[in-house]
Protein backbone atom coordinates (compact mmCIF):
# COMPACT_ATOMS: atom_id res chain seq x y z
CA UNK A 1 0.00 0.00 0.00
CA UNK A 2 1.33 3.37 -0.99
CA UNK A 3 1.85 5.83 1.83
CA UNK A 4 2.57 8.92 -0.25
CA UNK A 5 -0.28 10.69 -1.99
CA UNK A 6 -0.60 10.62 -5.77
CA UNK A 7 1.40 13.38 -7.48
CA UNK A 8 -1.77 15.11 -8.57
CA UNK A 9 -3.04 15.30 -4.99
CA UNK A 10 0.17 16.69 -3.53
CA UNK A 11 0.40 20.31 -2.58
CA UNK A 12 2.85 22.41 -4.52
CA UNK A 13 3.44 24.63 -1.52
CA UNK A 14 6.88 23.74 -0.07
CA UNK A 15 5.87 24.95 3.41
CA UNK A 16 3.02 22.43 3.38
CA UNK A 17 5.06 19.56 1.99
CA UNK A 18 4.82 16.14 3.63
CA UNK A 19 5.95 14.07 0.66
CA UNK A 20 9.67 14.87 0.61
CA UNK A 21 9.36 16.28 -2.86
CA UNK A 22 11.23 19.44 -1.93
CA UNK A 23 14.82 19.84 -0.94
CA UNK A 24 16.71 22.73 0.61
CA UNK A 25 19.64 23.67 -1.61
CA UNK A 26 23.03 24.56 -0.08
CA UNK A 27 22.24 28.23 -0.77
CA UNK A 28 19.09 27.98 1.36
CA UNK A 29 16.58 27.99 -1.49
CA UNK A 30 13.80 25.41 -1.53
CA UNK A 31 13.61 23.53 -4.80
CA UNK A 32 11.60 20.51 -6.00
CA UNK A 33 13.55 17.28 -5.69
CA UNK A 34 14.31 15.51 -8.97
CA UNK A 35 12.81 12.03 -9.15
CA UNK A 36 15.43 9.36 -8.57
CA UNK A 37 16.40 6.75 -11.15
CA UNK A 38 14.22 4.09 -9.45
CA UNK A 39 11.16 6.28 -9.89
CA UNK A 40 11.62 6.97 -13.59
CA UNK A 41 9.91 4.54 -15.92
CA UNK A 42 12.64 2.73 -17.87
CA UNK A 43 12.95 4.20 -21.32
CA UNK A 44 15.22 3.49 -24.24
CA UNK A 45 16.30 7.12 -24.67
CA UNK A 46 17.35 7.18 -21.01
CA UNK A 47 19.20 3.88 -21.36
CA UNK A 48 20.98 5.02 -24.53
CA UNK A 49 22.03 8.25 -22.82
CA UNK A 50 23.39 6.40 -19.77
CA UNK A 51 25.17 4.01 -22.12
CA UNK A 52 26.82 6.93 -23.89
CA UNK A 53 28.22 8.20 -20.59
CA UNK A 54 29.37 4.72 -19.54
CA UNK A 55 31.09 3.99 -22.85
CA UNK A 56 32.73 7.42 -22.68
CA UNK A 57 34.12 6.57 -19.24
CA UNK A 58 35.35 3.21 -20.51
CA UNK A 59 37.06 4.93 -23.44
CA UNK A 60 39.15 6.97 -20.99
CA UNK A 61 40.72 3.66 -20.02
CA UNK A 62 41.02 2.89 -23.74
CA UNK A 63 42.89 6.18 -24.28
CA UNK A 64 45.40 5.15 -21.62
CA UNK A 65 45.83 1.75 -23.32
CA UNK A 66 46.40 3.38 -26.73
CA UNK A 67 48.95 5.61 -25.02
CA UNK A 68 50.69 2.52 -23.61
CA UNK A 69 50.74 1.08 -27.15
CA UNK A 70 52.50 4.23 -28.40
CA UNK A 71 54.93 4.11 -25.51
CA UNK A 72 55.76 0.42 -26.09
CA UNK A 73 56.37 1.16 -29.77
CA UNK A 74 58.63 4.10 -28.95
CA UNK A 75 60.64 1.96 -26.50
CA UNK A 76 61.64 -0.52 -29.20
CA UNK A 77 61.07 -4.10 -30.39
CA UNK A 78 61.42 -5.84 -27.01
CA UNK A 79 58.95 -3.56 -25.23
CA UNK A 80 56.60 -3.87 -28.19
CA UNK A 81 56.80 -7.68 -28.17
CA UNK A 82 55.91 -7.66 -24.46
CA UNK A 83 52.96 -5.37 -25.15
CA UNK A 84 51.60 -7.40 -28.08
CA UNK A 85 52.14 -10.56 -26.03
CA UNK A 86 49.81 -9.27 -23.34
CA UNK A 87 47.30 -7.72 -25.70
CA UNK A 88 47.22 -10.73 -28.03
CA UNK A 89 46.30 -13.09 -25.18
CA UNK A 90 42.64 -14.15 -24.96
CA UNK A 91 42.10 -11.77 -22.02
CA UNK A 92 43.83 -8.93 -23.89
CA UNK A 93 41.71 -9.53 -26.99
CA UNK A 94 38.58 -9.53 -24.82
CA UNK A 95 39.59 -6.14 -23.38
CA UNK A 96 40.19 -4.73 -26.87
CA UNK A 97 36.89 -6.14 -28.09
CA UNK A 98 35.15 -4.41 -25.18
CA UNK A 99 36.92 -1.17 -26.03
CA UNK A 100 35.97 -1.49 -29.70
CA UNK A 101 32.36 -2.04 -28.66
CA UNK A 102 32.52 1.02 -26.38
CA UNK A 103 34.13 3.07 -29.16
CA UNK A 104 31.54 2.10 -31.79
CA UNK A 105 28.61 2.67 -29.43
CA UNK A 106 30.02 6.02 -28.29
CA UNK A 107 30.48 6.93 -31.96
CA UNK A 108 26.92 6.10 -32.98
CA UNK A 109 25.59 7.49 -29.69
CA UNK A 110 27.53 10.69 -30.28
CA UNK A 111 26.08 11.04 -33.77
CA UNK A 112 22.62 10.54 -32.25
CA UNK A 113 23.23 13.33 -29.76
CA UNK A 114 24.52 15.60 -32.55
CA UNK A 115 21.29 14.95 -34.48
CA UNK A 116 19.24 15.79 -31.38
CA UNK A 117 21.36 18.87 -30.70
CA UNK A 118 20.57 20.06 -34.22
CA UNK A 119 16.91 19.94 -33.16
CA UNK A 120 16.00 16.93 -35.27
CA UNK A 121 14.53 13.55 -34.33
CA UNK A 122 13.07 14.82 -31.06
CA UNK A 123 9.53 13.42 -31.34
CA UNK A 124 9.09 10.46 -28.96
CA UNK A 125 8.85 8.00 -31.84
CA UNK A 126 11.89 9.35 -33.70
CA UNK A 127 13.92 9.61 -30.47
CA UNK A 128 13.18 5.96 -29.61
CA UNK A 129 14.05 4.85 -33.13
CA UNK A 130 17.32 6.81 -33.08
CA UNK A 131 18.24 5.30 -29.70
CA UNK A 132 17.67 1.76 -30.91
CA UNK A 133 19.40 2.43 -34.24
CA UNK A 134 22.49 3.90 -32.58
CA UNK A 135 22.85 1.03 -30.11
CA UNK A 136 22.29 -1.72 -32.70
CA UNK A 137 24.51 0.11 -35.19
CA UNK A 138 27.34 0.33 -32.65
CA UNK A 139 27.18 -3.39 -31.87
CA UNK A 140 27.03 -4.28 -35.59
CA UNK A 141 30.11 -2.17 -36.45
CA UNK A 142 32.13 -3.60 -33.54
CA UNK A 143 31.21 -7.22 -34.28
CA UNK A 144 31.85 -6.77 -38.01
CA UNK A 145 35.25 -5.20 -37.24
CA UNK A 146 36.32 -8.22 -35.18
CA UNK A 147 34.85 -10.69 -37.65
CA UNK A 148 37.04 -9.10 -40.35
CA UNK A 149 40.06 -9.13 -38.01
CA UNK A 150 39.70 -12.85 -37.34
CA UNK A 151 38.76 -13.83 -40.90
CA UNK A 152 41.73 -11.92 -42.34
CA UNK A 153 44.04 -13.93 -40.08
CA UNK A 154 45.51 -10.77 -38.50
CA UNK A 155 44.31 -11.86 -35.09
CA UNK A 156 43.83 -15.38 -33.76
CA UNK A 157 43.28 -17.17 -30.50
Amino acid sequence: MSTSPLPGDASNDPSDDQTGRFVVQPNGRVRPLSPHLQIWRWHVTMFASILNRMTGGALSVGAVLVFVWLMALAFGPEAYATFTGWMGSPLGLLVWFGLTLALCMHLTGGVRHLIWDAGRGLSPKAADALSWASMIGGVVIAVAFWAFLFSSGRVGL
Partner: protein
Amino acid sequence: MSRHTKTFVKGVKVSERHGAGEWTAERLSSAILVPLTLWGLWSGFALSGGGYDGALAWFRSPVNAVLLAVTLLVSVWHMQMGLKVIVDDYIHKPGSRRALLGLIGLLCVLLAAAGVFFIVRLALGSAPLPAGFGI
Protein backbone atom coordinates in the same frame (compact mmCIF):
# COMPACT_ATOMS: atom_id res chain seq x y z
CA MET B 1 31.20 43.95 -17.98
CA SER B 2 28.30 43.35 -15.67
CA ARG B 3 27.75 39.77 -14.61
CA HIS B 4 24.08 40.28 -15.30
CA THR B 5 24.32 41.18 -18.95
CA LYS B 6 21.65 39.21 -20.72
CA THR B 7 22.31 38.05 -24.26
CA PHE B 8 19.59 36.81 -26.55
CA VAL B 9 19.82 34.85 -29.78
CA LYS B 10 16.59 34.60 -31.75
CA GLY B 11 14.68 35.55 -28.61
CA VAL B 12 16.24 32.80 -26.48
CA LYS B 13 18.44 33.78 -23.56
CA VAL B 14 21.91 32.29 -23.86
CA SER B 15 24.48 31.50 -21.17
CA GLU B 16 25.78 34.59 -19.37
CA ARG B 17 29.15 33.04 -18.53
CA HIS B 18 31.05 30.12 -20.06
CA GLY B 19 28.31 27.47 -20.42
CA ALA B 20 27.63 28.12 -24.08
CA GLY B 21 31.32 27.91 -24.93
CA GLU B 22 31.62 24.54 -23.17
CA TRP B 23 28.54 23.25 -24.97
CA THR B 24 29.93 24.32 -28.34
CA ALA B 25 33.37 22.83 -27.58
CA GLU B 26 31.79 19.47 -26.68
CA ARG B 27 29.84 19.38 -29.97
CA LEU B 28 32.76 20.65 -32.05
CA SER B 29 35.12 18.00 -30.66
CA SER B 30 32.44 15.31 -31.22
CA ALA B 31 31.94 16.33 -34.82
CA ILE B 32 35.68 16.34 -35.52
CA LEU B 33 36.04 12.92 -33.87
CA VAL B 34 33.39 11.21 -36.04
CA PRO B 35 35.61 10.90 -39.15
CA LEU B 36 38.77 10.48 -37.03
CA THR B 37 37.20 7.53 -35.17
CA LEU B 38 36.35 5.80 -38.46
CA TRP B 39 39.93 6.42 -39.61
CA GLY B 40 41.14 5.09 -36.23
CA LEU B 41 39.18 1.85 -36.69
CA TRP B 42 40.62 1.47 -40.17
CA SER B 43 44.14 2.10 -38.81
CA GLY B 44 43.65 -0.34 -35.95
CA PHE B 45 42.69 -2.95 -38.52
CA ALA B 46 45.76 -2.13 -40.67
CA LEU B 47 48.13 -2.27 -37.66
CA SER B 48 46.75 -5.50 -36.16
CA GLY B 49 49.11 -8.44 -36.41
CA GLY B 50 51.69 -6.34 -38.25
CA GLY B 51 54.23 -6.47 -35.46
CA TYR B 52 56.93 -3.91 -34.69
CA ASP B 53 58.16 -3.50 -38.29
CA GLY B 54 54.63 -3.11 -39.61
CA ALA B 55 53.87 -0.42 -37.04
CA LEU B 56 57.10 1.48 -37.83
CA ALA B 57 56.31 1.34 -41.56
CA TRP B 58 52.84 2.71 -40.79
CA PHE B 59 54.38 5.67 -38.91
CA ARG B 60 56.63 6.52 -41.86
CA SER B 61 53.56 7.88 -43.64
CA PRO B 62 53.26 11.55 -42.59
CA VAL B 63 49.49 11.38 -43.16
CA ASN B 64 49.20 8.61 -40.57
CA ALA B 65 51.44 10.38 -38.05
CA VAL B 66 49.65 13.73 -38.39
CA LEU B 67 46.17 12.19 -38.26
CA LEU B 68 47.13 10.14 -35.21
CA ALA B 69 48.46 13.23 -33.42
CA VAL B 70 45.28 15.17 -34.26
CA THR B 71 43.13 12.24 -33.13
CA LEU B 72 45.05 12.01 -29.86
CA LEU B 73 44.79 15.74 -29.10
CA VAL B 74 41.09 16.08 -29.97
CA SER B 75 40.30 12.85 -28.10
CA VAL B 76 42.08 14.05 -24.97
CA TRP B 77 40.26 17.39 -25.20
CA HIS B 78 36.90 15.58 -25.61
CA MET B 79 37.79 13.16 -22.78
CA GLN B 80 38.69 16.00 -20.40
CA MET B 81 35.32 17.67 -21.03
CA GLY B 82 33.43 14.37 -20.70
CA LEU B 83 35.11 13.39 -17.43
CA LYS B 84 34.57 16.92 -16.09
CA VAL B 85 30.83 16.62 -16.70
CA ILE B 86 30.75 13.27 -14.88
CA VAL B 87 32.68 14.69 -11.91
CA ASP B 88 30.52 17.83 -11.83
CA ASP B 89 27.38 15.65 -11.80
CA TYR B 90 28.33 13.13 -9.12
CA ILE B 91 30.98 14.70 -6.88
CA HIS B 92 29.31 17.30 -4.67
CA LYS B 93 32.07 18.20 -2.19
CA PRO B 94 33.86 21.24 -3.65
CA GLY B 95 37.27 20.10 -2.37
CA SER B 96 36.99 16.58 -3.77
CA ARG B 97 35.65 17.94 -7.03
CA ARG B 98 38.52 20.37 -7.45
CA ALA B 99 41.07 17.69 -6.59
CA LEU B 100 39.57 15.19 -9.07
CA LEU B 101 39.32 17.77 -11.83
CA GLY B 102 42.95 18.70 -11.19
CA LEU B 103 44.02 15.06 -11.44
CA ILE B 104 42.03 14.61 -14.66
CA GLY B 105 43.61 17.73 -16.12
CA LEU B 106 47.06 16.51 -15.17
CA LEU B 107 46.42 13.08 -16.74
CA CYS B 108 45.13 14.69 -19.94
CA VAL B 109 48.13 17.02 -20.27
CA LEU B 110 50.46 14.07 -19.66
CA LEU B 111 48.69 11.87 -22.26
CA ALA B 112 48.71 14.66 -24.83
CA ALA B 113 52.30 15.83 -24.32
CA ALA B 114 53.98 12.43 -23.99
CA GLY B 115 51.76 10.97 -26.73
CA VAL B 116 52.77 13.64 -29.24
CA PHE B 117 56.41 13.18 -28.18
CA PHE B 118 56.21 9.44 -28.99
CA ILE B 119 54.41 10.06 -32.29
CA VAL B 120 57.03 12.60 -33.41
CA ARG B 121 59.87 10.21 -32.56
CA LEU B 122 58.19 7.33 -34.39
CA ALA B 123 57.43 9.50 -37.42
CA LEU B 124 61.05 10.69 -37.60
CA GLY B 125 62.35 7.13 -37.25
CA SER B 126 64.28 7.98 -34.07
CA ALA B 127 66.14 5.26 -32.20
CA PRO B 128 64.09 3.37 -29.59
CA LEU B 129 63.86 5.06 -26.20
CA PRO B 130 65.50 5.62 -23.77
CA ALA B 131 68.15 6.44 -26.37
CA GLY B 132 70.10 9.50 -25.30
CA PHE B 133 68.08 9.96 -22.12
CA GLY B 134 70.81 8.35 -20.03
CA ILE B 135 68.84 5.53 -18.42
